[in-house]
């Protein structure tokens, strides 16, 4: 089984690290193969950031992801740009406060999470990416809870370890509950606000 994943958002959201943690979990803590690439670019300066992750039980030959099985978006831009690329019947994970889902392809399985809010509740907006990893882990099952946890341990500075472990677990639990009550895309509540401020 080969899974192509894209995680996209702004620079500074830790998009790359979330892909790194996930890939690391597969490559080092499960006996799979993972290849992570990222889109750099001057825009990376606070602009768009995105990482591609290919995980497989075979060595990965082609490193890039054109049509992901799974797309994780943490920004409106990312949503608009990458959603059309998702494979027929693919999965879409969304940061619900940052993304307003317009004309969403019907074939997608969509799961939303207020990752930023959760992170802020935990006291550090920074950890929204780890919340996302937890959410990804439970929703997709592409990688095991333990492997992810181990990868989180590897990658975060010691002094923020507990916070990050909490963040991961919150994300994971949120996904679990969501699965229990089944999915549904939510209407973004802040649309008006955006439109207003736009004129």
């Amino acid at each position, binding site marked *: 089984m080969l899974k192509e994943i894209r995680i996209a958002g702004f620079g500074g959201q830790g998009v790359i690290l979330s892909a790194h943690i996930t890939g690391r979990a597969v490559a080092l803590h499960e006996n799979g193969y993972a290849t992570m690439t990222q889109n750099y670019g001057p825009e990376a300066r606070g602009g768009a950031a995105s990482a591609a992750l290919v995980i497989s039980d075979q060595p990965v030959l082609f490193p890039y992801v054109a049509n992901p099985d799974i797309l994780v978006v943490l*920004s*409106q*831009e990312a949503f608009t740009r990458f959603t059309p690329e998702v494979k027929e019947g693919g999965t879409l994970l969304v940061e619900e406060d*940052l993304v307003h889902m317009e004309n969403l392809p019907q074939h997608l399985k969509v799961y939303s999470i207020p990752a930023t809010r959760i992170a802020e509740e935990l006291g550090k907006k920074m950890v929204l990416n780890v919340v996302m990893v937890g959410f990804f882990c439970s929703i997709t099952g592409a990688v095991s809870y333990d492997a992810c946890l181990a990868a989180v341990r590897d990658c975060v500075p010691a002094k923020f370890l507990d916070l990050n472990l909490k963040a991961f677990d919150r994300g994971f639990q949120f996904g679990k509950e969501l699965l229990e009550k089944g999915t549904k895309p939510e209407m973004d509540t802040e649309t008006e*606000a*955006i439109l207003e*401020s*736009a*004129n």
Partner: protein
Amino acid sequence: MPKGSVAITAERCKGCGFCVEFCPTHVLELSSAFNAKGYHPPHMITAEKCSGCNLCGMYCPDFAIFGYKFPDLKGGKVGPA
């Protein structure tokens, strides 16, 4: 009646807060709303205090705001001198 006002292009704004901080009469505040890029653009909270001095415009690194003075009442034409 304020002496001037500002024009804001919210979509250009990156929410840096320069305009808010350096407005001499504290006319501006960042709104809680996001623009499409996810930033909080400014809006006027005390429009009557705006002198149209355009310091906000001088500071705005993204050309998203500028101030302009109202002409001295004769003819309501709105626009920079």
